[in-house]
């Protein structure tokens, strides 16, 4: 009787797991996952080894052609501005808005990891994914230096990049908690 009850409990426990397991799909290797995983979160856990500073970044900004779209030192190009030309006395949200209306990423991003992720994922236009980790650290450092976020000689790497204090702090909106069937904004009738 006891063993029957035990068997029933075991079945109950195993049941849902078995029912969900179609046995379809395969386990990716750690190497495959590492190559795929280009999402860099705020803690920087996924950052690869490597390092760079603004000085190296300034040279790369020329040699990689960034200057062609973003302009000299990130100002005056056709692509979104990367350095604010507005006075430091202005509030950040005003200072961080470029002429075209785009936000200036290396100034307004809440985490420096976002700048790294963006460059690594999406730049340079037409040659995405070709920059080495050192190059991405260097370009990130250059853009943060241009906006007065870090000093020119600061070396960014896996450990120091997530610790960079971004000027926006907590002054940006979080998305509301999403639940099935809830209005998009509590109390908003429309």
């Amino acid at each position, binding site marked *: 009787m006891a063993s029957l009850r035990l068997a029933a409990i075991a079945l109950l426990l195993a049941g849902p797991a078995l029912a969900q397991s179609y046995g*379809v799909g395969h386990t990716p290797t750690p190497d495959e996952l590492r190559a*795929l995983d280009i*999402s860099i979160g705020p803690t920087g856990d996924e950052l690869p080894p490597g390092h760079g500073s603004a000085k190296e970044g300034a040279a790369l900004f020329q040699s990689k052609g960034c200057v062609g779209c973003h302009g000299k030192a990130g100002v005056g190009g056709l692509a979104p501005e990367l350095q604010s030309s507005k006075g430091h006395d202005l509030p950040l949200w005003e200072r961080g808005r470029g002429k075209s209306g785009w936000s200036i990423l290396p100034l307004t991003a809440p985490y420096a990891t976002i700048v790294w992720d963006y460059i690594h994922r999406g730049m340079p236009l*037409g040659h995405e994914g070709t920059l080495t980790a050192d190059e991405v650290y260097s370009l990130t450092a250059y853009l943060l230096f241009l906006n007065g976020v870090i000093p020119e000689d600061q070396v960014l790497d896996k450990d120091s990049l997530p610790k960079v204090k971004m000027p926006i702090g907590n002054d940006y909106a979080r998305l509301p908690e*999403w639940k099935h069937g809830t209005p*998009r904004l509590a109390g*908003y009738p429309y």
Partner: protein
Amino acid sequence: MDSKRTNRRELLKGSAAVAGGLAALVPAPAAAQTSPFGTPLHDQMPSHDQMAGMAAPGTPTPSGTPMIKGTKDLIEYGQRSHFVTSMRMPHPMGGRPSPDAFGKTFHVAAPLQDSVGVITPSSLHYFATTRGAYVPDIDPRTHSLTIHGLVDRPLTFTMEDLKRLPSVTRLHFIECAGNRHNGRQKNVQESHGMTSCAEWTGVLLSTLIKECGLKGSATWFVAEGAEEVKGASSMPIAKAMDDCLIAYGMNGEAVRPQNGYPLRLMAPGYEGIFHTKWLRRIKIVDRYYMNYNDYGHMTRTPEEAALGFQIGPKSVITSPSGGQQLPGKGFYEITGLAWSGGGAIRSVEVSTDGGKKWNKAQIKGTPQRMAHARFGYPWHWDGNETEIVSRCTDEIGQVQPTREQVAKYFNVPFDRNYRVPGLDNSVMPWRIARDGTVTNGLA
């Protein structure tokens, strides 16, 4: 015979170009359509070819009426009538042409003014890319979806794997955040064409995540495409486990390349950009990642953030609409589309006097959750100048507002240039002049 055969081929090529949006709106001249068929011979017996449905070129049908000759191409993959000229167009938003000088596409709008029913044909479905992009040409044999992060077992699914799993088929709209109407737009394609609705088939994301085993610490997921910029968006895990769909099918065939072939994430009711195209990876995480596409959403106020995420209740009259012409007074069915990110559409109202009196419209068929619903309202136009407008209510009671109502809610003064915060779901009036011309009521 041979020259006639060539003519017919050229003609078909010509209509293919029109369908591809390369040529002008004008269809091939009618004379060119009839010339290959020669003089009608009413007394001729049907030939063996005709009996088999493959009339020889230059052979008239027994009745002498114009016909479309069966060709290998047409038999294998059909084409609409050359009399139908409805086309997508590069959306004026952002001022970027599609295609641009490099063959990239940016924002392309669907011809809602010609739409019937609720399904947008795949060839006419709107599409958009964040900053202008090449459409990747993906070999499905080399494509896979990897789910990893806060799961017990990361798994990679090939396209073959995905098609073995239990599937669902659902109608869903997608709408671009840039689908904003203003007084400068001439027609509903310009004002509302950045939304479409299709029947999507695939595997629920929850099915795949359960297969991997979700860890208790999971709160968000990042979905990422395989295109050159690897566009990525963060979404709540609650959405993943609710109704997200990994779609390989669209309107009964494979998803089109512009819409994400071979795999697209559907996040029903969320702004278009979340519906990750060319989906290659889903990473389960414990916080908002703000990767790539997310950064563009960053706003300062919680209200704007919330209103730019899930789409509100919205409707528009597609006929009569801007640029159309009523031939005279009398009966017209006013018809249009209504949709909401909050669920199914519960009701639609139409006003034919500029919003003074609202009348219940008929919804055609059963409205589906996060899908376009087609509505109709019978109207006798008395020939006087007036304004027609629609508004809708969804299943959770959200009501489509006027721009004035939104301004009042946020306690800001209203003027013609007022910008509705977040996704613009305000009503769209069309003005009918005494001569029957229909123009933008916001102009």
